[in-house]
């Protein structure tokens, strides 16, 4: 299976973030982690 692993590297782009904010409700429902994770 390792032969079938394709790895690509890309830079983070602010435009991508803004696009996803516009297209998804992530800012409302987001629970990828805890906001108080640093407590």
């Amino acid at each position, binding site marked *: 299976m390792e032969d079938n692993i394709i*790895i690509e590297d890309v830079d983070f782009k602010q435009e991508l973030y803004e696009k996803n904010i516009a*297209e998804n409700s992530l800012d409302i429902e987001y629970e990828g982690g805890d906001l108080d994770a640093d407590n």
Partner: protein
Amino acid sequence: MQITRVKCPESKYSIKCPYEMIPEGITVHNTYNDASAMAEISYMLGNDFKTSFHAAVDDYRVVQGLDLNRSCFASGDGRNGFGNRKTINIEICYSKSGGEKFDAAEELAAEYIAYLLKQYGWGIDKVGTHQMRSGKYCPHRTLDYGWERFLNKIRYYMNYQNNPVDNSNIEKGSDEPVRVYANGSTREPIYENTRCTKKIGSLDPWEKADCFGIFENRAQVRYHVNGTGTDENPINDYKIGFCKWLGGVK
């Protein structure tokens, strides 16, 4: 398996991945969203919350947003908690609504986790849940469906990776015994699907092809594509598809 690594800007290290770490395990999450892995990662890297995770997995790829040798803020157990400080945190996408996309994402996540376990030389005991780190009911849908069931998926991929199929003796493909499909006196359309809605080619009258059997009342055939290359330098090219007429199956 496709892994897309998005580089976290160093200016965000302090809020996303403040410490170097030598990982000691894996923590599994569900996003409680219906967004893709790239959407999750780009949102995570773009906002200014102390909320982060190493990778998100959707129904067709893994998107990694943090180096695996840096800590993150995902497990809810504080800056120095085991989950945040010592484990690779992985989000499984599309968990809010579930369905086929979530099922596929979970499957790919199992494959990715098995790959990581092998990379680090770990056993299945290194895989935990967000709930184990800080008590939150997460990964919610994976837990609903059964944690041991998910671990078994990982075990399956671990076994697969440890016992790969030996293809070393196959140089130009293998040719197992198959039946013959002999076309009749009229041209026979070939379709890519058993509902026969997408035509991909046809068999000439009296043309013979390999036949792998009958599926959904259609004959599956492998046939030579005419006209590839030149008369002086012909190129062997084959297609596989389905046809309606079953009288050709021998």
